[in-house]
């Protein structure tokens, strides 16, 4: 009965050689979105998919620690929020150059991850969930009490980040491609890590921490490094979110938001990386589509989540595999 709070054991690591297809297709599709958007309400479509990718980056980071490391963080939104606040606070002091704000966002989130990781990683399973929630809530309350930066009301960001003084993100299309590049970079980074020696230890620690310790690895330190990397990438997502909405608010780090991120990675399929991108897209696009149909869309959305769990183990990717399996047999 003591399953612990780890990822589904059925999700196996994809073989290195078969990884290519689907992720490549995803990135290709995302790269084509702006061309399709030109035929419709362009800035709306670009905005929507920018949002999808921003959340996908945060979801990727969460999938890395959760799907591969078995560390289910219920405070992941805090990293996003801290990254966003780095942009907002620097912006309030007139510093908009991303050469400053981007590293600040990454560093701030990484430091928060390092400090809280020291405490959180001592615990396991549900306790880990709850202690990350605790730190997430603390970050939330601290952000809400930052009176000079809007307190609970949040803070408007006048201009998107610049590079050497050039407003390269001001155009929606170039901002879109910037976010896409960031997503690609995050994806490649995590893929590289997962298949590296470090990644093998990190994964091994999820399945059997004792064995890893016996083999002479300092599991705690490996997990902390993984946690800090995930935190920094969460900060990257926050940097982009702040630029996308041109607004930062404590609500970015509420526990509901952390919960949504967990739902996203589960929806896509845990421990696959590209599943996180699919999950983020599915969650946000379903929400958007249902919201357009009826104000009561949550009456549909809730049962949909239940059905996905009941009938699509391993998320949407799992469902796709199952369907493919059926077709193959037929």
């Amino acid at each position, binding site marked *: 009965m003591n399953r612990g709070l780890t990822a589904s054991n059925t999700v196996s690591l994809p073989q290195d050689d078969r990884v290519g297809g689907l992720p490549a297709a995803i990135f290709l599709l995302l790269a084509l979105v702006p061309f399709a958007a030109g035929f419709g309400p362009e800035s*709306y479509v670009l905005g929507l998919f920018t949002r999808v990718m921003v959340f996908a980056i945060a979801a990727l980071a969460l999938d890395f620690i959760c799907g591969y490391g078995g560390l289910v963080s219920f405070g992941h939104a805090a990293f996003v929020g801290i990254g966003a606040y780095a942009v907002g606070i620097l912006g309030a002091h007139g510093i908009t150059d991303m050469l400053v704000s981007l590293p600040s966002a990454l560093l701030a989130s990484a430091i928060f991850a390092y400090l809280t990781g020291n405490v959180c990683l001592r615990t396991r399973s549900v306790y880990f969930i709850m202690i990350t929630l605790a730190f997430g809530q603390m970050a939330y309350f601290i952000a809400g009490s930052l*009176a000079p930066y809007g307190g609970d009301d949040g803070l408007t960001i006048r201009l998107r980040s610049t590079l050497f003084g050039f407003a390269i993100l001001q155009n929606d299309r170039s901002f879109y491609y910037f976010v896409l590049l960031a997503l690609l970079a995050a994806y490649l980074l995590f893929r590289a890590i997962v298949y590296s020696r470090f990644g093998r230890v990190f994964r091994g620690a999820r399945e059997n921490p004792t064995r890893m310790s016996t083999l002479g690895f300092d599991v705690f330190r490996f997990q902390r490094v993984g946690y800090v990397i995930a935190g920094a990438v969460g900060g990257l997502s926050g940097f982009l979110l702040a630029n996308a909405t041109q*607004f930062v608010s404590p609500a970015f780090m509420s526990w509901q938001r952390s919960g949504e991120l967990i739902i996203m990675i589960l929806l896509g399929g845990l421990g696959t990386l590209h599943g996180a991108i699919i999950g983020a897209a599915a969650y946000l696009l379903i929400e958007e589509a249902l919201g357009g149909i009826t104000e009561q869309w949550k009456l549909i959305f809730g049962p949909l989540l239940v059905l996905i769990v009941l009938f699509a183990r391993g998320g949407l990717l799992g469902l796709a595999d199952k369907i493919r399996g059926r077709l193959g047999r037929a």
Partner: protein
Amino acid sequence: MCKRLALVGAIIGLSATAAGAQEKLKIGVIATLSGPPAVLGQQLRNGFQLAVKNLGGKLGDRDVEVVVEDDELKPDVAVNKAKALVDRTKVDFVVGPIFSNMLIAIMKPVTDAGVILISPNAGTSNFAGKECNPNFFVTSYQNDQNHEVMGKYAQDAGMKKVFLMAPNYQAGKDAIAGFKRYFKGDIADEVYVPLGQLDYSAELTKIAAASPDAIFVFLPGGMGVNFVKQFRQAGLAEKVKFLSAFTVDESTLPAQKEAAVGFFGGANWAPNLDNPQNKKFVTDYEKEYNAVPATYAFQAYDAALLIDGALKLTKGNTSDKDALRAALMKANFTSLRGPFKFNTNHYPIQDFYQVKVAQRADGKFETQIDKKVFAGYSDPYAKDCPMK
């Protein structure tokens, strides 16, 4: 982006003029329709839709299409929805939202696109002062004012000692500051509670220990319901006068009921305000939605009247923004609250009342006008606004 939007705007403008009054007027309504505060958003939406219905589905002789969006009380969702309204639905006006933090979030995407934003509730101080915006109009109040009404009342009534309480967030701090702007007596204590607090035993004990003449609280929504019930149950209602803003109103009274009777609030309107247009509004609203309207509904109703009046002046034309703004500024409508005009910062100049909770003959509860506290009152931030 700005350039392209301007271009798009110009094209839309041209086509709108070409199509003339035939084309439908599109209005986006953004309100919080999920979570506990959903009742406020529903009042807003209902009020606006009722006005459109009463005007025969037309504003300024143009057929109207109203698109309602839920901001879910998440700023980034609000921005997303606002962009969808502006860019996808191509609305001429955005009406909303309920909450100040949502207003701050959607201000830029809506007004930068040259769309007129009309707030039927939130009225933050920044947009009243230095950051006032030509495309932004408010049919409610500046947020501080209802609190100032209570402060003035407490001061005029000669109260010696008042206990203050609000949630620990920006609007809560503004509320306390607004009250203290007019009240110069003793402050027994100033308590900030966490947002969404359930049990007030600790605070009630503090109040009893301080034994003030009155308390002033700003506890919107469910917090107010919990506090009012517990305040009455603790037997404090008989000893301590209850002054409040956004704590006892028609959105919370169905749950507070008898517990709130005799409690005071500060407001710019009440359902029993005596003028023919308001009487008709309240009757129609109750018939249509089976609930007593609160300020959120009436201010949204006024927002529709405001648009209607302005479009009558521009003959249905929304493409000439300067003319449209000038027309809106004239406030060419009969407000449900009676006297109404815009200040230079596009916030209202209006009367404020102390209102009191009472049970009506039909058993329902409402706030009723008790006393006029300010006449033709404008907010102090307008002087910082560069618009003239």
